[in-house]
């Protein structure tokens, strides 16, 4: 068969959003690839310049529907740095719990979306069933299921209600049991490993050069997690480890990237538990929050998909003068020709699924 270009997207089961992947195939082997982004551009950054600082949390919530809290948190952190706001201790604990619950929900969303990519519909329903548990948990303090708007500048919207700890503990126990059950269905399954092992390989050096971060980098065996390296909230005080996996010396494949996320879910459970143990009493919102700011601030956080960076410039008014978002998925998707070449057409969903695409944050 002659070489030909196949256009996958913008509406295609593989894309998980709106983008186009053009691949050049020779028979079934991928020779070249060309991602096209921008179908979902909403000019969030420009919209943010016309709104007051505290209004922008509704925009950041909508950056990524799978993990809205983490993006709001990244924005709030940078604005707090800009305004020099001191956040109460209890609010930090609550924020950490919410972030980790959101990470669990986001990883479950990814795992559920990854299974149909491999032709395993049942997996999607299993993981999404468990995601509901965490959405229910996130609903308890915030009042909504998808776009929470819970983390505010200077703290959180309101204190967690009574009984939240017990409810969380019940869910975590159930979820741990289920993860054990799923091990037989997924990571110990021969066909699952046939599809994911030795597919979509890239080395740690390559990943760092291409700007691939987060679980995709940790899948190469590199210990890099901003929760430790550039710690924020109370992650420093908690006892937890960076989860890494590697397929071989210094490189990752789809399976190691899958396993890193499963390990991170276990670790998130650990973090949530120790948070509840250490949580102090006190206020959850700073007593005075300025509405004007001057100067510039830059913060980076560990999003479920990698490094989320926010840069805010204030000119003394109540709105940001400039607001810049750096999304981890933008660089990762842009690098896709590097890790798609040489594999089969059937590997495209397996590879592109394993890097956990979210187009909302990519196109901003």
């Amino acid at each position, binding site marked *: 068969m002659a070489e030909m270009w196949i256009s996958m997207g913008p509406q295609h*089961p*593989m894309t998980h959003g709106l983008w186009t992947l053009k691949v050049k195939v020779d028979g079934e082997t991928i020779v070249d690839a060309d991602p096209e982004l921008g179908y979902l551009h909403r000019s969030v950054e420009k919209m943010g310049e016309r709104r007051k600082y505290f209004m922008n949390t509704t925009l950041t919530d909508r950056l990524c529907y799978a993990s809205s809290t983490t993006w709001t948190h990244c924005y709030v952190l940078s604005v707090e740095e800009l305004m020099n706001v001191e956040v109460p201790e209890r609010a930090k604990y609550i924020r950490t719990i919410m972030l980790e619950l959101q990470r669990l929900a986001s990883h479950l969303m990814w795992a559920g979306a990854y299974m149909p*990519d491999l*032709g395993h519909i049942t997996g999607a329903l299993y993981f999404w069933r468990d995601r509901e548990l965490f959405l229910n948990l996130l609903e308890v303090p915030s009042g909504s299921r998808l776009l929470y708007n819970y983390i505010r500048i200077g703290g959180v919207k309101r204190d967690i209600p009574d009984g939240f700890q017990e409810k969380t503990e019940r869910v975590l126990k159930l979820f741990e049991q289920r993860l054990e059950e799923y091990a037989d269905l997924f990571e110990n399954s021969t066909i699952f490993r*046939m*599809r994911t092992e030795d597919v979509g390989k890239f080395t740690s050096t390559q990943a760092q050069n291409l700007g691939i971060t987060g679980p995709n980098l940790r899948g190469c065996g590199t210990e890099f997690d901003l929760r430790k390296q550039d710690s924020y909230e109370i992650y420093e005080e908690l006892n937890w480890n960076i989860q890494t996996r590697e397929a071989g010396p210094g490189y990752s494949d789809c399976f190691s990237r899958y396993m890193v996320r499963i390990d991170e879910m276990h670790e998130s459970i650990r973090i949530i538990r120790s948070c509840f143990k250490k949580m102090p009493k006190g206020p959850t919102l700073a007593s005075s929050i300025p509405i004007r700011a001057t100067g510039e601030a830059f913060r980076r956080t560990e999003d479920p998909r990698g490094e989320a960076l926010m840069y805010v410039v204030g000119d003394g008014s109540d709105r940001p003068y400039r607001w810049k978002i750096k999304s981890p998925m933008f660089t990762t998707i842009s690098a896709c020709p590097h890790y798609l070449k040489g594999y089969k057409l059937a590997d495209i969903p397996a590879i592109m699924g394993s890097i956990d695409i979210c187009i909302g944050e990519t196109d901003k």
Partner: protein
Amino acid sequence: MSLFDVCRTMAEWTAKYMFIPIFEFQEGLFPPFSNPAGDLANWFGSEGGLDTLAWLYAVNLAFMIGMTNLIIVIHLERKIAARIQDRRGPMLSFRSFRELGEDLAGNSPTWKFKENYAGIGILQNLADGIKAITKELIVPAKADRFLFTMGPIIFISSSVFLLVLFPLSDRFAASAAPAGLMVIMAAFSIAPIGVLTSGWASNNKYSMIGGMRSAAQLMSYEIPLLLSMAGVFLLAGSFNPVDIVEQQQESTWLFGLPMWNIIPQFLGFVVFMVCILAEVERVPFDLPEAEAELVEGWTTEYSGIRYMLFLAAEYIRGFTGAAVATILFLGGWAGPWPVPPEVWFLLKVYLIIIFWIFIRWSVPRIRTDQILELGWKKLLPLSLINILIVILMVEVYPYFSQVVNLPEVF
């Protein structure tokens, strides 16, 4: 009393009281002219005419039973898949029409789930059929119109043909070809041509790759499939399903238990089950319609009843594949007395189908190069080893048992 005898009686009655009077009446309408109706009346009175009519009835009966089973298989798949996935599956039933009746009467719907939506959901098939029939049959502007129409015809007709080829028991057979199983396998292999044709004619890259994959898949599984069946044919000395099942019924094992082919030829059974899954294109071998990368593969451009018939034909192929596996390895319709053999046969077939449904909803799909590797590097040697075992069993062991006086096992 076999199916053919019943149909022959039916043919005699219908010919005597329906066809012959009708054609004689037609002949009497225009007396001065010669009329073919009279020849037809004579033909229906002859032995050959009655035999032909009897075969037609038998084939139609087998077809009707096959289509009934098709509905049951689709329903089973839906319900079991739903249960595996922690859902309930379709629950539409006649009781659900209460809701509609209240709506038509002008009352507001009550949405009492437990009362009105707790049926077994068999009506869902009917609803899907109506939906498919009412949809538009779209032919893409740049498609090859003739081949685009021919593809489904080849695929669906060759699949429906399969329904009449296998016997439900030695007395319930619509066809009695001496090379019965070879005919079934030949009819099985026609479908990839239809897939390739429709994939090519759709003028769509996804469809074309799907069609090509179907052809590549045929290359990889067809040879081990036929080789794994060869062991059974050697043992029975026949291609006839009836002979094969009789051989399995007659051979006994420890304590007089029947030794079905699954016991001496377990290797062949495993190879056959893997290959027949690839033959009927079910997960993990549904590469031609891999929805993750090829949208819907070779069926992407088809709509309405054509697409529905594709799905139906796939289930027919699945049912036939399970029936062939039962005949070859599970003793066919053999079973203890009070239950009729047809019921035994269907029980075993449904056992295999339920096993397949469990597989389908619990494994991912494998890749094209992996199925080629599996077929050529693993299944082919295994099926050859199976033939070797059968040859040792049938030819070598009896010879040595005569020389050194071994007990007669087989």
